[in-house]
């Protein structure tokens, strides 16, 4: 593909998963000969397994204790991963670059105060004036600052405060689709010359009972022990294992990146999302359209990072699609390794793709059902099919 000034290039990756903090441990696992081993917490939220946070020294990216205290783990994780991405791009503490940097964050909502909620429903079981009870308890028990830790757009707000990213600040919501739209929008803006450099990504905290409840409302969790994502059994829950993850990318126009001599991991050739009925093969038809820009890539050096949620039907349909429409390209279902990250799911896949291409990795299989790579990655395809709705595919290639 010919190069142009408004090509969208990835120059910074900030990633935190159960596999570790930052690019280094993730590059190591992508370059390893042996398949990586999933880290899973099966006790703390039993019967629900989750991929937990690795050990994190928050102060590495959030210097002030006061700032750390204003957030709960979801926001902390996002602010931390955003800082890693800025560091990785060589833009951390570059006040001029950060002051004009655009930002799009894919966000859900923050942590509930489980104790206050419990107190209220327990008292409510004994009383029939529940609405009056709510007024009494919420007025006296809610911590005023917790509201800000729960607000979706305050992850971005905290990134502005901690990392001084202030060109613009937008928060997209809507589960997996938020992560897809965030990158799609950042891409389109840079491509059209509306932005020169954008911080984009999201974070997800799986170690929360209120979030586990969201998925258990449709009995979506795989239960008990961890099993490889392409072979989870229907008799054992819904197939999804959530993971605590944070992933941010620094995207730049080629011109902006080259002018400052930035290292370029990969170029984003295409990224698009879509939605609609999934009946009667319509999901597959949309995926086919979204995957079209990948047609010209050489199969054996193209790695597919599948963001499958693990939901049985959706996983099966995606696998069948990949096997037929993108055959010969090795697939890596990263959700099986680090868990499903809802809003952050697509950004995590983008981070894996950028690191793989940037380091020309021969990515080992993440799952027994996956074939080894016979050539180093020169291109990647990232997929995410939302657990309830929305799909997106990105195509990336080496410089």
């Amino acid at each position, binding site marked *: 593909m010919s190069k142009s000034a408004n090509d969208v290039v990835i120059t910074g990756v900030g990633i935190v998963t159960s596999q570790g903090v930052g690019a280094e441990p993730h590059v190591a696992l992508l370059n390893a000969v042996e398949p990586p081993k999933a880290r899973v917490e099966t006790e703390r939220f039993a019967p629900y397994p989750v991929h937990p946070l690795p050990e994190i020294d928050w102060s590495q990216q959030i210097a002030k204790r006061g700032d750390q205290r204003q957030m709960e783990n979801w926001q902390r994780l996002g602010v931390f991963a955003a800082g890693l991405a800025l560091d990785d791009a060589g833009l951390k503490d570059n006040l001029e670059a950060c002051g004009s940097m655009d930002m799009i964050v894919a966000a859900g909502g923050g942590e509930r105060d489980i104790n206050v909620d419990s107190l209220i429903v327990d008292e409510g079981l004994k009383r029939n004036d529940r609405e009056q009870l709510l007024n009494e308890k919420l007025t006296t028990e809610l911590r005023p600052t917790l509201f800000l830790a729960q*607000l979706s757009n305050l992850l971005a707000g905290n990134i502005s405060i901690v990392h001084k990213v202030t060109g*613009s*600040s937008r928060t997209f919501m809507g589960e997996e689709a938020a992560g897809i739209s965030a990158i799609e929008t950042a891409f389109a803006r840079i491509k059209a010359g509306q932005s020169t450099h954008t911080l984009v990504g999201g974070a997800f905290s799986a170690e929360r009972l209120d979030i586990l409840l969201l998925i258990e409302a449709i009995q979506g969790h795989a239960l008990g022990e961890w099993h490889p994502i392409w072979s989870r059994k229907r008799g054992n829950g819904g197939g999804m294992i959530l993971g605590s993850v944070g992933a941010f990318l620094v995207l730049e126009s080629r011109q902006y990146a080259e002018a400052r001599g930035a290292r370029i991991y990969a170029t984003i050739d295409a990224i698009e999302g879509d939605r609609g009925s999934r009946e009667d093969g319509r999901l597959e038809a949309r995926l086919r359209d979204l995957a079209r820009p990948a047609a010209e890539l050489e199969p054996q050096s193209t790695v597919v990072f599948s963001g499958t949620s693990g939901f049985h039907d959706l996983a099966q349909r995606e696998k069948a699609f990949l096997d037929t429409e993108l055959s010969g390209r090795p697939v890596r279902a990263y959700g099986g390794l680090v868990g499903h990250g809802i809003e952050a799911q697509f950004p995590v896949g983008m981070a894996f793709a950028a690191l793989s291409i940037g380091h020309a990795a021969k990515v080992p299989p993440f799952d027994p059902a996956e074939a080894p790579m016979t050539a180093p990655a020169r291109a990647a395809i990232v997929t995410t099919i939302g657990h309830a709705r929305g*799909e997106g595919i990105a195509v990336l290639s080496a410089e």
Partner: protein
Amino acid sequence: MGGAQRGVSGIHKITRFPTEGLSTRISGTVDFIEIPAENAVERSYAMARETTLEALAQAGLSGDFNGPLFLAAPPIEPEWNARFELADRAPASERPGDAYNRFLAAMRQKADPVFHEAVLFGSISERLADRFGTRGLPVTLSTACASGATAIQLGVEAIRQGRTDRALTVATDGSVSAEALIRFSLLSALSTQNDPPEKASKPFTKDRDGFVIAEGAATLVLESLEAAIARGARIYGILKGCGEKADLFHRTRSSPDGGPAIATIRAALADAGIDETGIGYINAHGTSTPENDKMEYLSMSAVFGERLPSIPVSSNKSMIGHTLTAAGAVEAVFSIQTMLTGTLPPTINYQNPDPAIVLDVVPNAKRSQQVTAVLSNSFGFGGQNASLVMTAEPA
């Protein structure tokens, strides 16, 4: 709209839930729209659907919309009645603080797909996309109280990118509940002057004491001028410029020097290609909080200088309250109506002007005056700032 143009307040006592013991007992809730279940998703969707039907009818469009959807929607959480219902069917408590473990046990017993759908942030845009046949993946966004303006900005950008000839930009907020009210109360953001309700919201006055929480929705059908002219559409106004700049000062407070808000207004003017002498009316964010109105005045002063007192600046929040997520789009509609009707909407309840804020706020009564370029400001928690410049249709 009609009432507010004339200066009639829509603020009233809250009847949706008991307010005994609460310091704020008034709001601008929308209680006149029929919804199948009492929750924020249903209410937000219903309002968005109605404003979109109206906007599409005005645009003369029917059938599939065939352009992208940008939706500003409130962050959603489960309703308390859903938690109480879960507690009712869940096993008994074994220790303090175990409600969610019991909720989970109840869900293992029996799933509740309605609960799941009601707490997904993507559920409102999903329904709008299906109903109106929008194209691609809809964006659901939140930039707090600037959300409505951001939705419009995203639509403008998509059209300028050449990705589409038209965009559906919708902002809705039907999320007033006891918890929402109490949360804002705990941050001392709300007016507590409950009696009479219609006098509580009084932007730019000396005795302003907080905003009045409210609900609403607005939809704008955006098209490229070329495409609109080509199909012979009626053009209501031109979205001429958008500006934004994030603030890093504090989670809820703005930089004391107004820097980011000033930069936002200047960016919108620059994007519109007009200088500060071109603006004939400003639709202020004007929340009626002590902090916002002071900061907004400071910012406008910095940009418009000595000319500011001669530019009419009004806040429709004096009449309809603060519709939060929807405000930026609702106020864009006010701004366009101002140009279309040649009527400046007033700032009502302007009895006791703040002497430190010297503005022509179009006090208390509407004014007939033709303007051809309007600035609309939106500022929000989390350092969110967005401004829009709209101009009248070129003759």
